[in-house]
């Protein structure tokens, strides 16, 4: 629209356009170098340390770093923990935000505004700022060092509630009224009238919830202590701090990619959906 849209294809305009393209490509290369380097080095033989000169390719490609990383830390267990935590959060959130969003879109009741603003409080005070008192709550509930402890603060989502309310409000009133005339119960209204057209919003929320909690580090670091319940992110940081790891970059890159790969692949496959969901979500 700005540069390419200049309609007169003069020599100067074409030069400007090429220049902008060149700048874009340089920027993109800089941005991508992080992941590209990690991928390349993770397949490099570990016996060939990075020194001055060649920091990219070794003499051959190998999977040994992945095998080694997997054997040095219980990544299988970490995977399982992360998947369980992320799916638990998602499963509960889908139910709670659908019900709460439905309530605020469909009903009129005393204290509605107060209750809505009370829930929106969660948007203004991010949960991570409250990790100290929340740690006390987790201790008091006897949940310390469990996967549930990692998941439970996110069971209610102000953002999801808000998002679903907005989506439900856009469902045509005629449709809802027709359902009521037909004698639908609240459950049938939700299931057959409200939910079908708002599934994309729910999926968008789900994707951003999964990627946010897959990547979370600080809270699980605080409430877990054993490998049996620890998620990938915390496991990775422990791994980098292992005495024998040091600056073995091939190994570190392999471990790093083990943690990031599932989400990256998911993102590559569902790129459009992902970006759409992040656009929707804003506050993760």
């Amino acid at each position, binding site marked *: 629209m700005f540069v390419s849209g200049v309609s007169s294809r003069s020599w100067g305009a074409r030069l400007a356009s090429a220049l902008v393209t060149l700048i874009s490509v340089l920027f993109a290369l800089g941005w*991508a170098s992080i992941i590209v380097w990690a991928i390349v080095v993770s397949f490099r033989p570990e016996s060939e340390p990075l020194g001055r000169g060649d920091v990219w390719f070794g003499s051959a490609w190998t999977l040994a770093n992945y095998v080694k990383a997997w054997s040095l830390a219980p990544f299988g267990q970490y995977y399982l923990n992360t998947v369980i935590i992320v799916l638990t959060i998602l499963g509960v959130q889908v139910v709670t935000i659908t019900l709460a969003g439905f309530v605020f879109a469909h009903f009129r009741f005393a204290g509605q505004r107060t209750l809505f603003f009370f829930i929106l409080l969660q948007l203004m005070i991010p949960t991570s700022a409250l990790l100290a008192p929340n740690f006390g709550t987790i201790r008091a509930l006897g949940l310390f060092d469990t996967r549930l402890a990692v998941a439970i603060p996110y069971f209610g989502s102000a953002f999801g509630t808000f998002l679903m309310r907005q989506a439900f409000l856009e469902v045509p009133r005629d449709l809802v009224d027709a359902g009521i005339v037909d004698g639908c119960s609240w459950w049938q209204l939700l299931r057959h009238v409200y939910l079908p057209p708002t599934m994309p919003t729910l999926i968008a929320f789900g994707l951003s919830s999964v990627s946010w909690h897959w990547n979370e580090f600080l809270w699980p670091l605080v409430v877990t202590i054993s490998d049996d319940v620890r998620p990938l992110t915390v496991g990775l940081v422990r791994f980098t701090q292992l005495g024998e790891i040091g600056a073995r970059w091939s190994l570190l890159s392999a471990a*790093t990619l083990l943690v990031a790969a599932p989400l990256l692949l998911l993102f590559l496959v569902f790129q459009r959906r*992902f970006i759409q969901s992040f656009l929707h979500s804003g506050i993760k």
Partner: protein
Amino acid sequence: MTTRTRPSRRRINLLPYLLVLPTAFFVALFTAWPTLLALYQSFFRQRLNIARFRQPTFVGLENYQALLTSSEFHQVLRNTLIYVLGTVPLSIALAFLLALLVNRRIRGVGFLRLAFFYPTVLPMVSAATIWMFFFTPDYGLFNTALQAIGYRGPQNWTANPDLALIAVMIVALWKNAGYYMIFYLAGLQNLPTDVFEAAALDGATIAQQLWYITFPLLRRTTLFVTTIAFISAFQTVDHIFVLTNGGPSNASTVLLFWLWQVRFEYLDVGKAATITVVLVAILLLFTVTNFLLSERKEVPDVR
């Protein structure tokens, strides 16, 4: 009150309260209650690693007094200020620039967008681990690139007291700019084209069009992105754990990292509660101001 389902009955319908209860319960338990608890605990001295201070003792405003006069707090506050005021405007400016770069009809633009956006789905701890290598003196790629453009300064980015904070800020910029970019990209694609055609006919340069038309029209996007960037700047400290651990000598310690350190390394419950109150106050001050300024604080015109 009545509901839409039962307009004729006058009795109170419990159903909406019941359905919203799970969400309200968890918000109460993990947002409202801990905020009040932190406020309460901030009036007590309680240190878990010192036997005689294990039990909480009421000390009034002593914690706040100690905090305000501690040089460590001043340093952390200064670091936080630099971090927030550095990363927020820069990442937004960068996001706007990147959005302009990828909002063109050229071949391979999808790859450009991918290159800028992928850090968003990368775990911060993974990203920071790889950045560790980039910051390595001599042969780290970041230093190599800097040398190529004539940089001759110190290279130990994560261990130099003057550079450590800048290093963590660079990683945050790289991680967030692509995320904020998509909001601007969506905004740009929703702009009316006729305004630009008219401006071009009137002889407005591209720079003038950007400054007088594009930027003002994307005001709401900017406001929204500023909000999420600000909150994110306060709550993301994962990379600090990997890159600098807050050091050297607190040079890269920001508020939330310090809070973690005080509570879980120094086991000082009272002081941690006081820091929590300060952090929450700053966040509330910002979000409420923002809310009042924008009135309708909703997901902006990005669809």
